[in-house]
């Protein structure tokens, strides 16, 4: 399983706005649910339930909201960038602008974990993070993610 094969430019949204975590995840759910044939409420609930176990923010304005949902047949990744910073975790928690949203089938926990691990490791690079916050074309975002996950230089 390689995340670079799961990045779909149609599921990259770079110009979003939300006032808080709930609104941000609701927007993401509405943008992703049609591709999954699921209701947006189910997706929002799943992501919020996971967030309740502990923030998925990984530092440097990035977070990886995720959950496993019945009815999902293969891992779906949505990339969502917000114009403003959204607070994750406690009120003093960190501001997040870029979300890697991972939705996985419930019966493939290992693939789900591999996807999360690959995203977390790729997003350690400050250079890659600042590029992803900077560029304006979804195709370019997809390209940066693909190449950095492949270990290629940018």
């Amino acid at each position, binding site marked *: 399983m390689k995340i670079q094969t799961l990045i779909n430019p149609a599921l990259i949204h770079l110009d979003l706005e939300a006032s808080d975590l709930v609104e941000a995840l609701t927007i993401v759910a509405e943008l992703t649910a049609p591709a999954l044939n699921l209701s947006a409420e189910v997706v929002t609930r799943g992501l919020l339930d*996971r967030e309740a*176990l*502990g923030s*998925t923010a*990984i530092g440097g304005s990035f977070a*990886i909201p995720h959950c496993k949902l019945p009815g999902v047949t293969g891992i779906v990744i949505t990339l969502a960038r917000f114009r403003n910073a959204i607070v994750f975790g406690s009120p003093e928690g960190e501001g997040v602008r870029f979300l890697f949203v991972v939705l996985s089938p419930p019966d493939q*926990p*290992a*693939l789900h*974990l*591999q996807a*999360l*691990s*690959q995203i*977390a*490791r790729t997003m*350690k690079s400050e250079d890659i993070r600042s590029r992803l916050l900077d560029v304006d074309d979804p195709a370019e975002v997809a390209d940066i993610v693909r190449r950095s996950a492949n270990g290629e230089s940018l």
Partner: protein
Amino acid sequence: MKAIVVGGGLVGSSLAAKLASDGHDVILVERDRELVRELNERLDVQMLVGNGTTVPVLKRAGIEGCDLLLATTDSDEANMVVALVGSALFNVPRVVARLRDEGHKESFRSIASEMGGERLLINPDTAAVDRILSLMTVPGAVDVAPFFDGGLQVAGFIVKETSDFNGLLLSHLRLLFPAVPMLVAAIRRDGRWRVPHGEDEILAGDLVYFAMDPGETDNVLALLGLQREAEHKVMIAGATRIGIELARRLEETGTSVTLLDGRRNACEKAAAELASTLVIHGSPTDRDRLVEEGAERVDDFIACTDDHEENVVACLLARRLGAAHTFALVDNPALAGLIGEVGIDAVISPRLLSVSLALQFARKGRVKAVAALLDDAVEVFEVEAGAGSRLVEEPLAQLGLPRGVLVAALRRGDKILVPTGADRIRAGDSVLLITTTKSASRLDDFLEAGQS
């Protein structure tokens, strides 16, 4: 505590040195004057030359008032005599005897059944077989040890270049496993141990010990790039006591086993004792023979001949031919460093296992379980935090624990928690502590201070 060790072999001398460094009053009794001279040069332990099976010698060693007696000579009979004299004549409260023969064990148990005190009988061969079987349940693990009555498993793995752990920060583990205990207990990198913290990164080539919910084993294996085979093929090199016992125990689980030995009479004996195991006459270091018997298709290759260097060579060969996992019986602690670097998954030392079991028994009371990781440089303790314990006073960050000691996990009721520095241990919690062996005695002192 006053301890007497009878027998200065590898087990006896290691035990004496360990107990002495833990701060106990130890005397080692050995009848071979030459060996005593040699040990005196290496060890800071009091020695007595004499036959430890005799009452006068034991009296001279101070058996009256002794708290712990360990009989670790190479002879079962001698060990039985030492242990029985200690129990029957001197009421030593804790006695350890190394007995290889199950018949001897039975005799000993029936003689000693009415005697006071606690006794531990150690069979190094059985300990080795138990260890190999537990390692085989977690493919690719270098080491596996259960804690909290099996609620938490400490397992060590070498991280491969292609593993999904390669490059992961320890702080990411909470992202991947938010609802279950999962942490890195210790990392060995370039031959050195590190006490880990959140900003540490896991790298290819690291030996990483995870403390984890056993239910997550398959997920951890997947992230490591390892997998369980549905049908298990096992090849054992060496129709030794350990080899035969291992084959017999594997037969019970329906595993298909091939047993290989270069000695015809050993093969005949094994064939007579075993049922479904295929016993083959042939040297385990003969490449063509290994190919012929299908070593390249086995999941686990275990070399347990009496020649431990041959075991290493046989494992290297089998690995090169394509055996998925290899285990070598090796008693030389220096060879333990071979793990991972040359492609041996794990080395099993019956002698070091005996030492661990005896130490665990010696420390019993405050400490409920203990395991030494790999080369003995790191130890894991499970202790009960009593009401007066120093562990329960303050948040963890302010406890003033000795350097090199990590509070890895707590069990409170039926919940297992991974604490942060701000958390407090409560009286009645079980506590999992990781410590470098160097700091183990300081940890002991720390725990002791709270008891008085």
